[in-house]
Protein backbone atom coordinates (compact mmCIF):
# COMPACT_ATOMS: atom_id res chain seq x y z
CA UNK A 1 0.00 0.00 0.00
CA UNK A 2 2.76 2.40 0.95
CA UNK A 3 4.69 1.56 -2.18
CA UNK A 4 1.72 2.14 -4.42
CA UNK A 5 1.04 5.55 -2.85
CA UNK A 6 4.74 6.37 -3.32
CA UNK A 7 4.37 5.61 -7.01
CA UNK A 8 1.28 7.78 -7.13
CA UNK A 9 3.12 10.68 -5.51
CA UNK A 10 6.06 10.28 -7.83
CA UNK A 11 3.93 10.09 -10.93
CA UNK A 12 1.98 13.10 -9.73
CA UNK A 13 5.18 15.01 -9.26
CA UNK A 14 6.54 13.94 -12.63
CA UNK A 15 3.28 15.05 -14.20
CA UNK A 16 3.69 18.38 -12.49
CA UNK A 17 7.24 18.71 -13.75
CA UNK A 18 6.03 17.79 -17.19
CA UNK A 19 3.26 20.32 -17.00
CA UNK A 20 5.75 23.06 -16.12
CA UNK A 21 8.35 21.94 -18.65
CA UNK A 22 5.95 21.50 -21.57
CA UNK A 23 5.67 25.13 -22.69
CA UNK A 24 9.43 25.56 -22.56
CA UNK A 25 9.93 22.41 -24.61
CA UNK A 26 7.38 23.64 -27.13
CA UNK A 27 9.21 26.94 -27.39
CA UNK A 28 12.67 25.44 -27.59
CA UNK A 29 13.05 25.02 -31.39
CA UNK A 30 11.66 28.48 -32.13
CA UNK A 31 13.79 30.15 -29.48
CA UNK A 32 16.90 28.26 -30.59
CA UNK A 33 16.56 29.25 -34.25
CA UNK A 34 15.59 32.79 -33.35
CA UNK A 35 18.52 33.13 -30.97
CA UNK A 36 21.10 31.83 -33.42
CA UNK A 37 19.95 33.45 -36.66
CA UNK A 38 18.35 36.68 -35.44
CA UNK A 39 19.37 37.68 -31.93
CA UNK A 40 23.04 36.72 -32.18
CA UNK A 41 23.45 38.55 -35.52
CA UNK A 42 21.99 41.71 -33.93
CA UNK A 43 24.65 41.56 -31.25
CA UNK A 44 27.32 40.66 -33.81
CA UNK A 45 26.35 43.62 -35.97
CA UNK A 46 26.98 46.10 -33.16
CA UNK A 47 30.22 44.30 -32.40
CA UNK A 48 31.54 44.50 -35.97
CA UNK A 49 30.51 48.11 -36.30
CA UNK A 50 33.35 49.12 -33.98
CA UNK A 51 36.03 47.52 -36.13
CA UNK A 52 37.56 48.03 -39.50
CA UNK A 53 36.33 44.59 -40.32
CA UNK A 54 37.85 42.46 -43.06
CA UNK A 55 36.13 39.39 -44.32
CA UNK A 56 39.34 37.79 -45.50
CA UNK A 57 40.74 35.08 -43.26
CA UNK A 58 43.85 36.04 -41.35
CA UNK A 59 43.42 39.75 -41.93
CA UNK A 60 43.66 41.95 -38.87
CA UNK A 61 40.57 43.82 -37.83
CA UNK A 62 41.68 46.97 -36.02
CA UNK A 63 39.37 48.44 -33.40
CA UNK A 64 37.93 51.75 -34.56
CA UNK A 65 35.80 52.94 -31.65
CA UNK A 66 33.00 55.15 -32.87
CA UNK A 67 34.78 56.32 -35.99
CA UNK A 68 32.62 54.19 -38.32
CA UNK A 69 29.64 56.04 -36.90
CA UNK A 70 31.14 59.50 -37.18
CA UNK A 71 32.13 58.69 -40.76
CA UNK A 72 28.46 58.17 -41.58
CA UNK A 73 27.76 61.83 -40.95
CA UNK A 74 30.51 62.93 -43.32
CA UNK A 75 29.51 60.65 -46.16
CA UNK A 76 27.79 62.64 -48.92
CA UNK A 77 26.13 59.55 -50.43
CA UNK A 78 24.40 58.87 -47.11
CA UNK A 79 22.57 62.13 -47.41
CA UNK A 80 21.22 61.13 -50.83
CA UNK A 81 20.43 57.58 -49.70
CA UNK A 82 18.65 58.74 -46.55
CA UNK A 83 16.69 61.32 -48.50
CA UNK A 84 15.70 58.74 -51.12
CA UNK A 85 14.63 56.25 -48.46
CA UNK A 86 12.66 58.92 -46.64
CA UNK A 87 10.97 60.02 -49.86
CA UNK A 88 10.24 56.42 -50.73
CA UNK A 89 8.53 55.88 -47.38
CA UNK A 90 6.44 59.05 -47.36
CA UNK A 91 5.31 58.55 -50.95
CA UNK A 92 4.70 54.83 -51.27
CA UNK A 93 3.25 54.04 -47.84
CA UNK A 94 0.31 56.50 -47.77
CA UNK A 95 -0.54 55.86 -51.42
CA UNK A 96 -0.52 52.10 -50.95
CA UNK A 97 -2.71 52.41 -47.88
CA UNK A 98 -5.15 54.79 -49.54
CA UNK A 99 -5.56 52.64 -52.63
CA UNK A 100 -5.65 49.46 -50.54
CA UNK A 101 -8.38 50.83 -48.29
CA UNK A 102 -10.30 52.21 -51.26
CA UNK A 103 -10.15 48.85 -53.05
CA UNK A 104 -11.19 47.06 -49.87
CA UNK A 105 -14.15 49.42 -49.41
CA UNK A 106 -15.27 48.84 -52.99
CA UNK A 107 -14.87 45.09 -52.86
CA UNK A 108 -15.98 44.31 -49.31
CA UNK A 109 -19.64 43.84 -50.20
CA UNK A 110 -20.61 41.13 -52.59
CA UNK A 111 -20.22 41.87 -56.25
CA UNK A 112 -20.50 39.51 -59.23
CA UNK A 113 -17.11 37.85 -59.50
CA UNK A 114 -16.04 39.06 -56.05
CA UNK A 115 -13.38 36.42 -55.67
CA UNK A 116 -11.86 37.23 -59.04
CA UNK A 117 -11.53 40.95 -58.34
CA UNK A 118 -10.03 40.30 -54.94
CA UNK A 119 -7.55 37.77 -56.30
CA UNK A 120 -6.60 40.12 -59.12
CA UNK A 121 -5.77 42.95 -56.73
CA UNK A 122 -3.66 40.65 -54.57
CA UNK A 123 -1.72 38.79 -57.27
CA UNK A 124 1.05 41.40 -57.76
CA UNK A 125 2.00 40.80 -54.12
CA UNK A 126 3.03 37.20 -54.77
CA UNK A 127 5.06 37.93 -57.89
CA UNK A 128 8.82 38.12 -57.74
CA UNK A 129 10.51 41.51 -57.28
CA UNK A 130 13.23 40.63 -59.76
CA UNK A 131 10.68 39.69 -62.40
CA UNK A 132 8.41 42.70 -62.02
CA UNK A 133 11.37 45.08 -61.78
CA UNK A 134 12.28 44.05 -65.32
CA UNK A 135 8.70 44.09 -66.53
CA UNK A 136 8.51 47.70 -65.37
CA UNK A 137 11.92 48.51 -66.86
CA UNK A 138 10.56 47.22 -70.11
CA UNK A 139 7.29 49.12 -69.79
CA UNK A 140 9.33 52.29 -69.28
CA UNK A 141 12.02 51.53 -71.88
CA UNK A 142 13.09 54.55 -73.92
CA UNK A 143 12.72 52.65 -77.18
CA UNK A 144 9.46 50.79 -77.64
CA UNK A 145 8.35 51.16 -74.04
CA UNK A 146 4.61 51.15 -73.57
CA UNK A 147 4.66 54.24 -71.36
CA UNK A 148 6.47 56.35 -73.93
CA UNK A 149 4.05 55.11 -76.57
CA UNK A 150 1.11 56.11 -74.38
CA UNK A 151 2.69 59.51 -73.73
CA UNK A 152 3.34 59.86 -77.45
CA UNK A 153 -0.24 58.98 -78.27
CA UNK A 154 -1.57 61.75 -76.04
CA UNK A 155 1.02 64.40 -76.87
CA UNK A 156 0.95 63.79 -80.59
CA UNK A 157 4.69 63.51 -81.13
CA UNK A 158 7.29 60.87 -80.45
CA UNK A 159 8.30 60.58 -76.82
CA UNK A 160 11.59 58.89 -75.96
CA UNK A 161 12.13 59.54 -72.28
CA UNK A 162 14.90 57.38 -70.91
CA UNK A 163 13.01 56.83 -67.66
CA UNK A 164 15.40 54.60 -65.78
CA UNK A 165 18.55 56.54 -66.71
CA UNK A 166 17.62 59.81 -65.00
CA UNK A 167 17.34 60.32 -61.29
CA UNK A 168 13.82 61.63 -60.93
CA UNK A 169 12.14 59.62 -63.64
CA UNK A 170 13.90 56.50 -62.34
CA UNK A 171 12.56 57.28 -58.87
CA UNK A 172 9.07 57.61 -60.31
CA UNK A 173 9.35 54.18 -61.95
CA UNK A 174 10.58 52.68 -58.67
CA UNK A 175 7.73 54.29 -56.73
CA UNK A 176 5.07 53.21 -59.20
CA UNK A 177 6.37 49.66 -59.23
CA UNK A 178 6.47 49.52 -55.44
CA UNK A 179 2.96 50.92 -55.08
CA UNK A 180 1.64 48.57 -57.75
CA UNK A 181 3.16 45.53 -56.06
CA UNK A 182 2.31 46.61 -52.53
CA UNK A 183 -1.34 47.66 -52.75
CA UNK A 184 -2.70 44.11 -52.56
CA UNK A 185 -1.14 43.51 -49.18
CA UNK A 186 -2.79 46.41 -47.37
CA UNK A 187 -5.93 45.66 -49.39
CA UNK A 188 -6.24 42.17 -47.97
CA UNK A 189 -5.68 43.27 -44.39
CA UNK A 190 -8.16 46.11 -44.71
CA UNK A 191 -10.63 43.74 -46.36
CA UNK A 192 -10.41 41.38 -43.39
CA UNK A 193 -10.75 44.31 -41.00
CA UNK A 194 -13.82 45.72 -42.78
CA UNK A 195 -15.33 42.25 -42.88
CA UNK A 196 -14.95 42.00 -39.15
CA UNK A 197 -16.98 45.09 -38.28
CA UNK A 198 -20.25 43.94 -36.70
CA UNK A 199 -23.06 44.56 -39.19
CA UNK A 200 -25.44 45.73 -36.46
CA UNK A 201 -23.05 48.53 -35.62
CA UNK A 202 -23.19 49.84 -39.19
CA UNK A 203 -26.92 49.29 -39.51
CA UNK A 204 -27.77 51.12 -36.33
CA UNK A 205 -25.56 54.04 -37.32
CA UNK A 206 -27.33 54.22 -40.65
CA UNK A 207 -30.78 53.92 -39.15
CA UNK A 208 -29.90 56.85 -36.94
CA UNK A 209 -29.66 58.73 -40.21
CA UNK A 210 -25.92 59.23 -40.13
CA UNK A 211 -24.43 60.24 -43.42
CA UNK A 212 -22.20 57.67 -45.02
CA UNK A 213 -19.21 59.92 -44.34
CA UNK A 214 -20.06 60.00 -40.65
CA UNK A 215 -20.51 56.25 -40.56
CA UNK A 216 -16.97 55.99 -41.89
CA UNK A 217 -15.56 58.61 -39.61
CA UNK A 218 -17.18 57.37 -36.41
CA UNK A 219 -17.82 53.66 -36.93
CA UNK A 220 -15.66 52.21 -39.67
CA UNK A 221 -12.33 53.94 -39.07
CA UNK A 222 -12.33 53.46 -35.29
CA UNK A 223 -13.18 49.78 -35.80
CA UNK A 224 -10.23 49.17 -38.10
CA UNK A 225 -7.76 51.22 -36.12
CA UNK A 226 -5.74 48.15 -35.19
CA UNK A 227 -5.41 47.17 -38.82
CA UNK A 228 -4.38 50.71 -39.80
CA UNK A 229 -1.64 50.71 -37.16
CA UNK A 230 -0.49 47.27 -38.17
CA UNK A 231 -0.35 48.14 -41.87
CA UNK A 232 1.41 51.46 -41.24
CA UNK A 233 4.10 49.92 -39.07
CA UNK A 234 4.82 47.00 -41.36
CA UNK A 235 4.70 49.06 -44.56
CA UNK A 236 7.13 51.62 -43.16
CA UNK A 237 9.51 48.83 -42.21
CA UNK A 238 9.08 47.21 -45.61
CA UNK A 239 9.66 50.53 -47.34
CA UNK A 240 12.75 51.22 -45.26
CA UNK A 241 14.34 48.09 -46.68
CA UNK A 242 13.60 48.90 -50.30
CA UNK A 243 16.30 47.04 -52.14
CA UNK A 244 15.57 44.71 -55.03
CA UNK A 245 13.71 47.11 -57.29
CA UNK A 246 16.48 49.71 -57.03
CA UNK A 247 19.23 47.12 -57.27
CA UNK A 248 17.69 45.74 -60.46
CA UNK A 249 16.42 48.88 -62.15
CA UNK A 250 19.13 51.48 -61.51
CA UNK A 251 21.80 49.79 -59.39
CA UNK A 252 21.59 52.99 -57.35
CA UNK A 253 22.81 55.07 -60.29
CA UNK A 254 23.29 57.38 -62.06
CA UNK A 255 26.12 58.47 -59.76
CA UNK A 256 24.50 57.04 -56.62
CA UNK A 257 21.56 59.40 -57.04
CA UNK A 258 18.90 56.68 -56.59
CA UNK A 259 20.71 54.81 -53.80
CA UNK A 260 18.54 53.84 -50.82
CA UNK A 261 19.94 53.14 -47.37
CA UNK A 262 19.73 49.43 -48.01
CA UNK A 263 21.30 49.38 -51.47
CA UNK A 264 24.08 51.63 -50.21
CA UNK A 265 24.69 49.43 -47.18
CA UNK A 266 24.81 46.42 -49.47
CA UNK A 267 27.25 48.11 -51.80
CA UNK A 268 29.51 49.13 -48.92
CA UNK A 269 29.56 45.59 -47.56
CA UNK A 270 29.58 43.34 -50.57
CA UNK A 271 31.17 45.49 -53.28
CA UNK A 272 33.56 47.65 -51.26
CA UNK A 273 34.01 45.08 -48.46
CA UNK A 274 33.70 47.85 -45.86
CA UNK A 275 31.93 45.50 -43.47
CA UNK A 276 32.55 47.56 -40.36
CA UNK A 277 31.20 50.71 -41.94
CA UNK A 278 28.18 48.92 -43.40
CA UNK A 279 27.48 47.31 -40.04
CA UNK A 280 27.58 50.72 -38.36
CA UNK A 281 25.14 51.98 -40.95
CA UNK A 282 22.84 49.01 -40.39
CA UNK A 283 22.99 49.35 -36.60
CA UNK A 284 22.16 53.02 -36.73
CA UNK A 285 19.28 52.36 -39.11
CA UNK A 286 17.98 49.55 -36.92
CA UNK A 287 17.87 51.84 -33.89
CA UNK A 288 16.15 54.61 -35.86
CA UNK A 289 13.55 52.25 -37.34
CA UNK A 290 12.89 50.52 -34.06
CA UNK A 291 12.24 53.90 -32.49
CA UNK A 292 10.05 54.91 -35.39
CA UNK A 293 7.92 51.76 -35.12
CA UNK A 294 7.53 52.22 -31.38
CA UNK A 295 6.50 55.84 -31.95
CA UNK A 296 3.97 54.89 -34.63
CA UNK A 297 2.36 52.29 -32.40
CA UNK A 298 2.27 54.74 -29.50
CA UNK A 299 0.78 57.58 -31.50
CA UNK A 300 -1.86 55.44 -33.17
CA UNK A 301 -2.90 53.78 -29.98
CA UNK A 302 -3.66 57.12 -28.39
CA UNK A 303 -5.13 58.86 -31.36
CA UNK A 304 -8.75 58.96 -32.29
CA UNK A 305 -8.89 58.02 -35.91
Amino acid at each position, binding site marked *: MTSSSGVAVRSKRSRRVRR*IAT*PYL*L*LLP*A*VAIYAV*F*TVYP*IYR*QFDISFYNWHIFPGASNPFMGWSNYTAIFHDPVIRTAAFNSFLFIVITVPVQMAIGLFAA*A*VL*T*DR*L*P*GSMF*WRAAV*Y*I*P*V*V*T*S*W*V*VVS*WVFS*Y*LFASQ*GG*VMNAVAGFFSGHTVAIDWTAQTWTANVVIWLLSI*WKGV*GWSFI*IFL*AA*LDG*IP*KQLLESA*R*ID*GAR*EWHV*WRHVVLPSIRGAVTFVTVLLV*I*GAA*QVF*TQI*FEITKGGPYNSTQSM*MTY*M*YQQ*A*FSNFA*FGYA*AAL*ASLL*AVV*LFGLSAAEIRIMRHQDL
Partner: protein
Amino acid sequence: MVIGVDKSKTKPRSALAGTGPGLFGIRKRNRLRMVIAIVLAFLSLGPLLYMVSLSFQPNGGLLGATVLIPTHPTVQNYVQAWTQNSFGRYFVNSLIVSIATVVVTVIIASLAAFAFARYKFRFKELIFYIFLASLAVPNLLLLIPQFLLMDRLHLLDSLMGLTLLYVASNLPFTIFLLRGFFEAIPHEYEESFRMDGAGTIRVLTSLIAPLSLPALAVVSMFIFSAAWDEFPVALTMISSSQHYTLPVALADFIGVHTVEWGPFFAASVIATIPVVVVFLVSLKWFRSGVSLGAIR
Protein backbone atom coordinates in the same frame (compact mmCIF):
# COMPACT_ATOMS: atom_id res chain seq x y z
CA MET B 1 -23.68 62.93 -50.55
CA VAL B 2 -26.24 60.19 -50.69
CA ILE B 3 -27.64 59.02 -47.42
CA GLY B 4 -27.64 55.26 -47.42
CA VAL B 5 -30.76 54.87 -45.35
CA ASP B 6 -32.86 57.12 -47.56
CA LYS B 7 -31.98 55.18 -50.62
CA SER B 8 -32.93 51.87 -49.12
CA LYS B 9 -36.33 53.27 -48.28
CA THR B 10 -37.11 54.51 -51.75
CA LYS B 11 -35.63 51.64 -53.69
CA PRO B 12 -36.05 47.93 -53.13
CA ARG B 13 -32.73 46.62 -52.01
CA SER B 14 -30.92 44.71 -54.70
CA ALA B 15 -29.85 41.22 -53.74
CA LEU B 16 -26.26 42.33 -53.99
CA ALA B 17 -26.62 45.59 -52.15
CA GLY B 18 -24.11 45.81 -49.41
CA THR B 19 -24.78 45.74 -45.77
CA GLY B 20 -21.06 46.07 -45.16
CA PRO B 21 -19.06 49.22 -44.68
CA GLY B 22 -19.04 49.96 -48.39
CA LEU B 23 -17.59 53.24 -49.43
CA PHE B 24 -19.39 56.46 -48.78
CA GLY B 25 -22.30 56.76 -51.20
CA ILE B 26 -21.31 54.06 -53.62
CA ARG B 27 -22.17 51.32 -51.20
CA LYS B 28 -25.21 50.29 -53.15
CA ARG B 29 -24.21 51.46 -56.58
CA ASN B 30 -23.11 48.19 -58.00
CA ARG B 31 -22.47 49.43 -61.50
CA LEU B 32 -19.97 52.00 -60.32
CA ARG B 33 -18.37 49.44 -58.05
CA MET B 34 -18.12 47.06 -60.98
CA VAL B 35 -16.35 49.67 -63.11
CA ILE B 36 -13.90 50.38 -60.30
CA ALA B 37 -13.32 46.66 -59.83
CA ILE B 38 -12.54 46.24 -63.52
CA VAL B 39 -10.12 49.17 -63.49
CA LEU B 40 -8.37 47.84 -60.39
CA ALA B 41 -8.07 44.36 -61.89
CA PHE B 42 -6.75 45.78 -65.15
CA LEU B 43 -4.11 47.87 -63.40
CA SER B 44 -3.09 44.92 -61.24
CA LEU B 45 -2.95 42.31 -63.94
CA GLY B 46 -1.95 44.53 -66.87
CA PRO B 47 1.83 44.44 -66.38
CA LEU B 48 1.70 40.68 -65.79
CA LEU B 49 -0.38 40.06 -68.90
CA TYR B 50 2.10 42.21 -70.78
CA MET B 51 4.89 39.99 -69.52
CA VAL B 52 3.01 36.92 -70.75
CA SER B 53 2.45 38.58 -74.11
CA LEU B 54 6.14 39.46 -74.46
CA SER B 55 7.14 35.91 -73.64
CA PHE B 56 5.41 34.73 -76.82
CA GLN B 57 6.95 37.41 -78.99
CA PRO B 58 9.74 36.30 -81.36
CA ASN B 59 12.95 37.44 -79.72
CA GLY B 60 14.20 39.61 -82.57
CA GLY B 61 11.12 41.79 -82.55
CA LEU B 62 11.51 42.92 -78.95
CA LEU B 63 12.74 46.27 -77.73
CA GLY B 64 12.34 49.12 -80.11
CA ALA B 65 8.78 48.30 -81.08
CA THR B 66 5.80 48.64 -78.81
CA VAL B 67 4.17 45.23 -78.74
CA LEU B 68 0.92 44.58 -76.96
CA ILE B 69 -0.15 41.37 -78.65
CA PRO B 70 2.41 39.33 -80.59
CA THR B 71 1.54 39.01 -84.27
CA HIS B 72 3.52 35.80 -84.72
CA PRO B 73 3.33 34.08 -81.35
CA THR B 74 6.02 31.51 -80.68
CA VAL B 75 6.94 29.13 -77.88
CA GLN B 76 10.58 29.25 -78.91
CA ASN B 77 11.39 31.50 -75.94
CA TYR B 78 10.09 28.90 -73.52
CA VAL B 79 12.10 26.14 -75.15
CA GLN B 80 15.21 28.29 -75.02
CA ALA B 81 14.65 29.46 -71.45
CA TRP B 82 14.10 25.96 -70.15
CA THR B 83 16.91 24.20 -72.01
CA GLN B 84 19.72 26.74 -72.15
CA ASN B 85 20.41 27.94 -68.65
CA SER B 86 19.85 24.87 -66.50
CA PHE B 87 16.67 26.65 -65.59
CA GLY B 88 15.13 23.38 -64.43
CA ARG B 89 17.72 23.17 -61.70
CA TYR B 90 16.99 26.68 -60.40
CA PHE B 91 13.34 25.86 -60.44
CA VAL B 92 13.91 22.75 -58.33
CA ASN B 93 16.22 24.68 -55.97
CA SER B 94 13.52 27.28 -55.40
CA LEU B 95 10.94 24.58 -54.87
CA ILE B 96 13.10 22.76 -52.31
CA VAL B 97 13.93 25.91 -50.35
CA SER B 98 10.37 27.24 -50.38
CA ILE B 99 8.69 24.00 -49.38
CA ALA B 100 11.27 23.27 -46.69
CA THR B 101 10.85 26.78 -45.33
CA VAL B 102 7.08 26.39 -45.18
CA VAL B 103 7.17 22.97 -43.48
CA VAL B 104 9.81 23.83 -40.90
CA THR B 105 8.41 27.27 -40.11
CA VAL B 106 4.84 26.06 -39.73
CA ILE B 107 5.80 23.18 -37.44
CA ILE B 108 8.12 25.17 -35.22
CA ALA B 109 5.85 28.20 -35.12
CA SER B 110 2.82 26.03 -34.27
CA LEU B 111 4.61 24.51 -31.29
CA ALA B 112 5.59 27.94 -30.03
CA ALA B 113 2.21 29.51 -30.74
CA PHE B 114 0.54 26.66 -28.87
CA ALA B 115 2.72 27.32 -25.86
CA PHE B 116 1.85 31.02 -25.96
CA ALA B 117 -1.85 30.37 -26.50
CA ARG B 118 -2.44 27.65 -23.93
CA TYR B 119 0.12 27.72 -21.12
CA LYS B 120 0.99 30.00 -18.30
CA PHE B 121 4.69 30.23 -17.69
CA ARG B 122 7.30 32.64 -16.48
CA PHE B 123 8.39 35.40 -18.86
CA LYS B 124 5.69 34.36 -21.31
CA GLU B 125 4.80 37.84 -22.51
CA LEU B 126 8.41 38.97 -22.38
CA ILE B 127 9.49 36.14 -24.68
CA PHE B 128 6.57 36.86 -26.96
CA TYR B 129 7.51 40.53 -27.22
CA ILE B 130 11.11 39.66 -27.92
CA PHE B 131 9.87 37.67 -30.88
CA LEU B 132 7.58 40.51 -31.94
CA ALA B 133 10.30 43.13 -31.60
CA SER B 134 12.13 41.73 -34.59
CA LEU B 135 9.14 42.68 -36.74
CA ALA B 136 10.08 46.27 -36.03
CA VAL B 137 13.55 45.88 -37.54
CA PRO B 138 14.02 45.10 -41.22
CA ASN B 139 15.40 41.63 -41.78
CA LEU B 140 17.76 42.84 -44.45
CA LEU B 141 19.66 44.86 -41.89
CA LEU B 142 21.08 41.61 -40.54
CA LEU B 143 22.58 40.60 -43.86
CA ILE B 144 26.18 41.30 -42.84
CA PRO B 145 26.30 39.44 -39.51
CA GLN B 146 24.22 36.63 -40.98
CA PHE B 147 26.70 36.33 -43.81
CA LEU B 148 29.58 36.06 -41.33
CA LEU B 149 27.61 33.58 -39.22
CA MET B 150 26.83 31.35 -42.17
CA ASP B 151 30.45 31.54 -43.19
CA ARG B 152 31.51 30.25 -39.80
CA LEU B 153 28.86 27.51 -39.79
CA HIS B 154 29.96 26.45 -43.29
CA LEU B 155 26.43 27.10 -44.48
CA LEU B 156 27.31 29.65 -47.14
CA ASP B 157 26.31 28.63 -50.63
CA SER B 158 23.99 25.95 -49.28
CA LEU B 159 20.27 25.57 -49.74
CA MET B 160 19.96 24.35 -46.16
CA GLY B 161 21.62 27.49 -44.84
CA LEU B 162 19.31 29.61 -46.92
CA THR B 163 16.30 27.70 -45.61
CA LEU B 164 17.39 28.25 -42.00
CA LEU B 165 17.63 32.00 -42.56
CA TYR B 166 14.20 32.04 -44.19
CA VAL B 167 12.72 30.07 -41.30
CA ALA B 168 14.23 32.51 -38.82
CA SER B 169 12.87 35.53 -40.67
CA ASN B 170 9.37 34.06 -41.03
CA LEU B 171 9.04 32.74 -37.48
CA PRO B 172 7.98 35.85 -35.55
CA PHE B 173 5.10 36.83 -37.82
CA THR B 174 3.89 33.24 -38.10
CA ILE B 175 3.95 32.75 -34.33
CA PHE B 176 2.12 36.05 -33.91
CA LEU B 177 -0.66 35.04 -36.32
CA LEU B 178 -1.00 31.45 -35.11
CA ARG B 179 -1.17 32.45 -31.47
CA GLY B 180 -4.24 34.50 -32.27
CA PHE B 181 -5.89 31.63 -34.11
CA PHE B 182 -5.09 29.05 -31.47
CA GLU B 183 -6.41 31.27 -28.70
CA ALA B 184 -9.74 31.44 -30.51
CA ILE B 185 -10.21 27.66 -30.29
CA PRO B 186 -12.44 26.89 -27.30
CA HIS B 187 -10.68 25.32 -24.31
CA GLU B 188 -13.43 22.76 -23.78
CA TYR B 189 -12.46 20.78 -26.88
CA GLU B 190 -8.96 20.40 -25.58
CA GLU B 191 -10.09 19.41 -22.09
CA SER B 192 -12.27 16.61 -23.36
CA PHE B 193 -9.42 15.50 -25.57
CA ARG B 194 -7.02 15.39 -22.65
CA MET B 195 -9.63 13.58 -20.57
CA ASP B 196 -9.31 10.76 -23.07
CA GLY B 197 -5.62 10.65 -22.25
CA ALA B 198 -4.25 12.54 -25.22
CA GLY B 199 -0.79 14.10 -24.82
CA THR B 200 0.25 17.54 -25.96
CA ILE B 201 1.48 16.40 -29.35
CA ARG B 202 -1.75 14.48 -29.95
CA VAL B 203 -3.77 17.54 -29.02
CA LEU B 204 -1.77 19.55 -31.53
CA THR B 205 -1.89 17.10 -34.41
CA SER B 206 -5.42 15.74 -34.01
CA LEU B 207 -7.27 18.74 -32.61
CA ILE B 208 -5.58 22.10 -33.08
CA ALA B 209 -4.13 21.45 -36.54
CA PRO B 210 -7.36 20.23 -38.15
CA LEU B 211 -9.34 23.04 -36.54
CA SER B 212 -6.93 25.69 -37.72
CA LEU B 213 -6.38 24.24 -41.16
CA PRO B 214 -7.55 27.43 -42.91
CA ALA B 215 -5.15 29.51 -40.85
CA LEU B 216 -2.30 27.11 -41.49
CA ALA B 217 -3.05 27.13 -45.22
CA VAL B 218 -3.05 30.90 -45.42
CA VAL B 219 0.10 31.23 -43.34
CA SER B 220 1.77 28.61 -45.54
CA MET B 221 0.87 30.65 -48.59
CA PHE B 222 2.42 33.77 -47.08
CA ILE B 223 5.61 31.93 -46.22
CA PHE B 224 5.82 30.15 -49.56
CA SER B 225 5.50 33.34 -51.57
CA ALA B 226 8.00 35.14 -49.35
CA ALA B 227 10.57 32.37 -49.76
CA TRP B 228 9.89 31.95 -53.47
CA ASP B 229 10.40 35.66 -54.10
CA GLU B 230 13.31 36.30 -51.73
CA PHE B 231 16.25 37.90 -53.50
CA PRO B 232 18.82 39.85 -51.43
CA VAL B 233 19.58 37.09 -48.92
CA ALA B 234 19.89 34.45 -51.64
CA LEU B 235 22.05 36.80 -53.68
CA THR B 236 24.37 37.24 -50.71
CA MET B 237 24.56 33.67 -49.45
CA ILE B 238 24.57 31.69 -52.68
CA SER B 239 27.64 31.92 -54.87
CA SER B 240 27.77 28.90 -57.16
CA SER B 241 25.28 28.80 -59.99
CA GLN B 242 24.22 25.24 -59.24
CA HIS B 243 22.64 26.52 -56.01
CA TYR B 244 20.89 29.55 -57.51
CA THR B 245 17.26 30.06 -56.68
CA LEU B 246 15.01 31.53 -59.37
CA PRO B 247 15.26 35.23 -58.44
CA VAL B 248 19.06 35.05 -58.35
CA ALA B 249 19.14 33.11 -61.61
CA LEU B 250 16.82 35.60 -63.29
CA ALA B 251 18.85 38.57 -62.10
CA ASP B 252 21.99 36.82 -63.31
CA PHE B 253 20.33 36.16 -66.64
CA ILE B 254 19.92 39.92 -67.09
CA GLY B 255 23.33 40.82 -65.80
CA VAL B 256 25.50 38.42 -67.74
CA HIS B 257 23.99 38.06 -71.18
CA THR B 258 23.18 40.80 -73.56
CA VAL B 259 19.59 40.63 -72.58
CA GLU B 260 17.53 38.20 -74.56
CA TRP B 261 14.21 39.59 -73.54
CA GLY B 262 12.05 36.88 -75.06
CA PRO B 263 13.59 33.98 -73.13
CA PHE B 264 13.89 36.20 -70.06
CA PHE B 265 10.17 36.89 -69.97
CA ALA B 266 9.41 33.26 -70.74
CA ALA B 267 11.56 32.28 -67.76
CA SER B 268 9.78 34.92 -65.68
CA VAL B 269 6.40 33.49 -66.56
CA ILE B 270 7.55 29.99 -65.60
CA ALA B 271 8.93 31.39 -62.33
CA THR B 272 5.66 33.16 -61.58
CA ILE B 273 3.29 30.25 -62.20
CA PRO B 274 3.92 28.16 -59.06
CA VAL B 275 3.44 31.03 -56.64
CA VAL B 276 0.26 32.15 -58.37
CA VAL B 277 -1.05 28.58 -58.27
CA VAL B 278 -0.26 28.32 -54.56
CA PHE B 279 -2.07 31.60 -53.99
CA LEU B 280 -5.14 30.54 -55.98
CA VAL B 281 -5.32 27.23 -54.13
CA SER B 282 -5.07 29.02 -50.79
CA LEU B 283 -7.97 31.30 -51.77
CA LYS B 284 -10.31 28.52 -50.78
CA TRP B 285 -9.30 29.01 -47.17
CA PHE B 286 -8.89 32.73 -47.24
CA ARG B 287 -12.39 33.68 -46.18
CA SER B 288 -12.58 31.40 -43.20
CA GLY B 289 -8.92 31.53 -42.29
CA VAL B 290 -7.99 35.12 -42.48
CA SER B 291 -10.23 36.95 -40.22
CA LEU B 292 -6.68 37.80 -39.20
CA GLY B 293 -8.07 37.85 -35.73
CA ALA B 294 -4.81 38.70 -34.10
CA ILE B 295 -4.49 41.95 -35.99
CA ARG B 296 -7.70 43.72 -35.38
